[in-house]
């Protein structure tokens, strides 16, 4: 038997959600040898929790003529004028991004959208349908047409299962329940990763010609979040520790309708299908904030509106920190047909039946617009000059290809993960077939990671031995209070000093479980270390950005400042904390110049 602690593939993908699995499937189809590691079974990936839809300008559905843009929907007759276009999708996305999205990347995403939805359909995805058998579409916040292709409110689940099945068909090798510890980047060349086989506790060197990070989002740094317990930002933290910069980390989206007290998502499809938001006085308060779009304004705007109502004393629930979501007028039939999962979640976690009761909701940390900077082919870049990190790729929520800019529109994340996962798959296959070689690994990276684990597992010296769970809880408190929906200089400085104090305390963390086999105590500690790592970057980036744009809202700088801030934040690791540099946003000044964002 060969040495079992070294594994080699042409391509190693970290993460098996939509982005990672698309990339693996495509590379596999192209004849490249692919291994995918995932810390959960691939079908447990958080892409599967997405509910509402995937955006594509298919133009299958339109409002009934003469009923206005908010009128009831019908299928577009075969001979009618096209009702949607990629150009419209592009403009909506640019506007939603508050002009921080890179327009070249957005153009690729919205054009590929149409093809990718048909591709999903051809691979067996069970979309909801129009009466004549086309893919059905519905409204979503910030989109000017009914553009969300959906499968009831299970869209992510259906897409994830479909693409996973295809990857299996193409012979992709999955390492289920393996955890990435480190990525080996030397002189801007990626040589592989170090991973932990969770089952055995063995640390393994995984060498590859190309490595892709598709590790998803990092909402777990906040107390109330829609994110799975697994979404701890491991990928972004690992990349950052290896010298890769992180881009636009200050932009974290809060979704307007998390289950009160839990943060579990009630899909935006609730509002897309016609749901209302009400304050404690029973007012549809969105008419004060976005009279043209009401509840279908983009998420940053709706979340801020809710928080304003709550802060001004018009919240609901025992501690007045909630808002009502009203679906009652949709009727039983529509709720059961289009929002069955929403009904079930509200029943289980709030004890209310949305068919005839109001559901208490609150804003919940949801999506991370920032991440590992990458080109439209998933190529990770090392600096503001776009120097490539050879052999390193990223896509999905952990990446920042900057199609969402300062605020993502609903249904654009399944799209982003699919489109750029696929493109990264093609790019990696071309890279491997173009003669890429395995690079010699000379560093002591395995020993370094063994030492990291050994410290956490060693018996605590006197006066030490803190639990990681307490540190994680304190981090979440400060991030929620000080780096949440509303921010200012003083609060962000408080968060930064809290994080640095917690980072010091983390040095004394010791775990209780000293066995190698399936050690989830160890994983919890490693995840907490990652949370502390990227949270510092979020806060330092937010402190620097003295303006309000999209999801980043500074009460002390309440205006968008295009003169100084039409640029991306890049944060590099240094011994003294993140060092920032900036990169211009790609804007087509002729076609899509910045304008005021009104809804």
């Amino acid at each position: 038997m060969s040495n079992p602690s070294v594994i080699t593939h042409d391509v190693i993908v970290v993460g098996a959600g939509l982005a990672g699995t698309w990339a693996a499937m495509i590379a596999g189809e192209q004849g490249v040898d692919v291994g995918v590691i995932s810390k959960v079974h691939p079908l447990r990936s958080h892409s599967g929790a997405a509910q509402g839809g995937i955006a594509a300008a298919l133009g299958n559905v339109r409002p009934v003529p003469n009923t206005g843009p908010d009128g009831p929907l019908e299928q577009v007759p075969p001979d009618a004028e096209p009702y949607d276009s990629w150009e419209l999708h592009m403009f909506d996305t640019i506007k939603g991004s508050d002009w921080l999205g890179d327009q070249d990347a957005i153009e690729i995403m919205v054009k590929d959208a149409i093809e990718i939805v048909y591709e999903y359909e051809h691979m067996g995805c069970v979309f909801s349908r129009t009466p004549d058998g086309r893919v059905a579409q519905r409204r979503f916040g910030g989109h000017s047409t009914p553009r969300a292709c959906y499968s009831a409110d299970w869209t992510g689940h259906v897409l994830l299962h479909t693409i996973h099945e295809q990857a299996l068909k193409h012979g992709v090798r999955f390492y289920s329940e393996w955890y990435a510890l480190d990525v080996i980047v030397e002189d801007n060349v990626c040589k592989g990763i170090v991973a932990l086989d969770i089952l055995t506790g063995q640390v393994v060197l995984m060498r590859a010609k190309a490595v892709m990070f598709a590790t998803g989002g990092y909402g777990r740094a906040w107390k109330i979040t829609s994110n799975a317990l697994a979404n701890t930002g491991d990928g972004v933290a690992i990349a950052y520790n290896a010298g890769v910069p992180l881009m636009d980390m200050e932009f974290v989206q809060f979704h307007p309708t998390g289950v009160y007290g839990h943060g579990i998502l009630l899909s935006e499809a609730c509002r897309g299908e016609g749901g209302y938001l009400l304050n404690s006085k029973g007012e549809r308060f969105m008419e004060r904030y976005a009279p043209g779009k009401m509840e279908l304004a983009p998420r940053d705007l709706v979340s801020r509106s809710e928080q304003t109502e709550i802060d001004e004393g018009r919240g609901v629930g025992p501690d007045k920190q909630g808002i009502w979501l009203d679906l009652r007028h949709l009727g039983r039939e529509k709720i059961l047909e289009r929002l069955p999962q929403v009904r079930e979640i509200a029943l289980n976690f709030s004890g209310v039946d949305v068919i005839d009761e109001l559901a208490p909701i609150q804003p919940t940390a949801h999506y991370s617009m920032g991440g590992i900077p990458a080109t439209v082919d998933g190529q990770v870049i090392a600096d503001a000059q776009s120097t490539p990190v050879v052999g390193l790729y990223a896509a999905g929520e952990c990446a920042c290809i900057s199609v969402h800019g300062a605020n993502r529109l609903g249904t654009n994340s399944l799209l982003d993960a699919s489109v750029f996962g696929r493109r990264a798959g093609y790019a990696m296959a071309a890279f491997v077939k173009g003669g890429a070689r395995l690079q010699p690994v000379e560093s002591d990276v395995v020993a370094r990671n063994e030492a990291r684990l050994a410290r956490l597992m060693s018996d605590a010296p006197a006066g030490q031995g803190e639990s990681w769970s307490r540190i994680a809880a304190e981090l979440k408190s400060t991030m929620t209070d000080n780096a949440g929906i509303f921010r200012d200089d003083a609060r962000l400085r408080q968060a930064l000093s809290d994080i640095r104090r917690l980072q010091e305390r983390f040095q004394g963390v010791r775990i209780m479980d000293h066995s190698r086999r399936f050690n989830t105590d160890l994983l919890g500690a490693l995840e907490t270390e990652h949370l502390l790592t990227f949270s510092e970057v979020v806060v330092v980036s937010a402190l620097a950005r003295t303006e309000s744009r999209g999801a980043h809202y500074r009460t002390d700088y309440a205006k968008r400042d295009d003169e100084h801030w039409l640029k991306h934040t890049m944060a590099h690791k240094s011994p003294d904390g993140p060092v920032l540099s900036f990169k211009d946003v790609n804007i087509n000044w002729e076609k899509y110049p910045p304008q005021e964002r009104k809804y």
Partner: protein
Amino acid sequence: MSDNGSPLTITVRIQRFNPDVDRKPYLQDFKVTWQQGMTILDALHTIKAEQDGSLTFRRSCRHAICGSCAMNINGRNMLVCEQPIKAHLNRKNEITIRPLPYLPIIKDLVVDRTTFWAQYMRVKPWLIPPENVPEKEFRMSPEEVAALQDAEHCIMCGACYSACTVVGTTKEYIGPHALLKAFLRVMDVRDSAPGERLAEIAGSDGVYRCHTIFNCIDACPKHLNPTKAIETLRKLAQKRLAFEAARAERQKHLDKPVTSG
């Protein structure tokens, strides 16, 4: 608070087993103070954080969509993330948590699902589309979609598989989860190999092995009905050739608008 206003202490009895050090599984009691809205998963997290970090279980989404946290509670399989613990306490305020039955234990509440996934692979879970793929979507009627929705909603949590007494006696049986996936593909008008699929599952390890005990329906956290799917597959297997011919006929029109009934 309990009904009389004092904090309610509950006993969480958990089956422990680390094969590296334990000779056999044993039950261990933990005391937890009940909080309003506490789920079984919340109690497991509390114990792990505050009492014993070595307590091992799987979980991820915590709202019943990822399928990680299926376990056996007081003898019944369920997803512990969506279950309020109070609903499962006995008169002495006790609850017993065990790993899914019939599967080898990796550690504590984590089981080895190797056979579960091997059976899933056996039914070739991917769609086998017809050769002529349209430029746009295959046309399917809302009714044809509705026929698939239940099977499509399976999250592969394994609650049904490990509740099945046939699985308990033979791991050769394909199992309710994989047969439900087979049903999804057989019934999909876009699939062009329903005959092959029916042949595969009509063997002695397939649909005829089901004893129709309905444990899978009882266990399914998504309220799906694998037994009914298995019964449908049995019937279709008996008229496989006619079904194949009907599918071939339907597939001649997959690029044409459907008329919805």
